[in-house]
């Protein structure tokens, strides 16, 4: 059974349709990348899955449960999902440790001592052992984004949503964040990510989806999409990316 099923999802903003019937299946342990031009609806789709946006039509099933049903327990759905944003969105008034333990303690009822122990483990694993007491503005962008990923991981989500997690970073800091995502894949985490890092996307994805005009125009394994795309639109997009030096 697929972990996530997106079926004919529409989303309109002020009369303009961003998603025009998107279909997508994500199996357990699969890494799915969404690529496409800015405004093609990649981020909107992730926000719909997280229920930060309400879909205007279609259905999204998480582990078989219809999460687009208005009567669904929204907080219960979000407890099973982790999302990481382009701009990190760490809580500036909390230390790294408090950022990470907030949801385990206040949502999942994990005792403080255990939550902190788990947070220290994760920080150590991702090379941030000395940073537990630091505040977000004392960290580099790459470190902040790694903390944001750990914060999402700390609630042990079934599915991680990564929304252009390296787009706000200095090129020298991109690698350290991508390294963490590789490690997550090795540990079997199911992920949907949007990215402009095509080399990385090719490397890590099981399935690549090209979004264009609000639909998944083309999808397949990365070798197929990057070497032999079916659609002219996909070829044009990849050529433009290549010319911009992002490959």
């Amino acid at each position, binding site marked *: 059974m697929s972990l996530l099923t997106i079926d004919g999802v529409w989303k309109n903003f002020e009369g303009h349709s961003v998603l025009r019937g998107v279909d997508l299946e994500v199996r357990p342990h699969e890494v799915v990348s969404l690529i496409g031009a800015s405004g093609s609806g990649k981020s909107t789709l992730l926000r719909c899955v997280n229920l*930060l946006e309400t879909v205007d039509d279609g259905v999204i099933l998480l582990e078989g449960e219809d999460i687009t049903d208005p009567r669904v327990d929204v*907080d*219960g759905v*979000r407890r099973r999902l982790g999302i990481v*944003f382009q701009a990190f969105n760490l*809580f500036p*008034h909390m230390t790294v440790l408090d950022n990470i333990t*907030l949801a385990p303690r*206040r949502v*999942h009822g994990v005792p403080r001592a255990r939550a902190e122990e788990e947070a220290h483990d994760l920080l150590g694993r991702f090379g941030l052992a000395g940073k537990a007491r630091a505040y977000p503005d004392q960290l580099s962008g790459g470190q902040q984004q790694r903390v944001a990923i750990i914060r999402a991981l700390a609630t042990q989500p079934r599915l991680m949503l990564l929304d252009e997690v390296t787009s706000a970073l200095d090129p020298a800091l991109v690698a350290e964040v991508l390294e963490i995502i590789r490690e997550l894949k090795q540990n079997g985490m199911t992920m949907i990510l949007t990215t402009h890092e095509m080399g990385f996307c090719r490397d890590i994805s099981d399935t690549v989806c090209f979004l264009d005009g609000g639909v998944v125009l083309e999808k397949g394994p990365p070798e197929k999409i990057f070497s032999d795309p079916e659609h002219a639109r996909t070829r044009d997009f990849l050529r433009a990316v290549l010319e911009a030096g992002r490959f």
Partner: protein
Amino acid sequence: MSDLPAGPAWVKSERQLARERARRSRARRSTSIATASTVVFIVLAVVLVTNAPGWPRVQDAFFDSEAFVSALPDVLSGFLLNIKIFLIAEVLILVVGLLVALARGVKSPAFFPIRALATLYTDVFRGVPTILIIYLIGFGLPALRLQGIPTDLATLGIIALTLSYGAYVAEVFRSGIDSVHPSQVAAARSLGLSHAKTMRFVVLPQATRRVVPPLLNDFVSLQKDTALVATIGPLEALRQAQIYAAGKFNYTPYLVAALLFILLTIPMARFTDHLAERTRRRRGA
């Protein structure tokens, strides 16, 4: 700093030394100009006032050192009541202001009446002059003769000040809440935090930090406005000064009261400035 790569040691160039000399001499010149202009200003002001045709009478009525000394104990004991009113009202105002601000932000339709009531409250109590609210509460509430309604004048004054300032402080809190970026709420909600927990752990801690300077500003104003309670009669500083002035036909006690208020508000005002400056520096950093 010790892990910086080794480079040539810095010896200040002749050009840099000349620049620093020029900056120092300019700073010295600015200081002397500021001192001179301040002295000139003060001398002019004093000369102007003391040469006014009515000055001798004003001096007798407002600057009578004997009256100053004899009025001081009574005015000071009245002033303690001002401080008491201020301290109690301040706590109540913070509670009322925060609750009203939160009530205005509640989205659930079941709470519509509460939201509407909170909006009505801020509209009404910001619109009515504080002194009128003090009259209405001070004379109106006891006239109802309801069981349990306080009749103590200072208590009625505290209630009136709380109602009036609560409306302002609610708006200050609300603007603070609105100033927290929506992405913070999105991050908290996406972690599974409910609306209430998002408010408590993520939005309010950031909002209150931002509104401390404007809140302190309102409290400086509240300190002075405790004197308005004099209009309904409790023996606070202004009332004591009025009694003394009426008995001795001398206005010096008003000056005593004014000095006491200044002594209280200046430290608060400086503290507010200090906090605002610190916030500005942190943002800039």
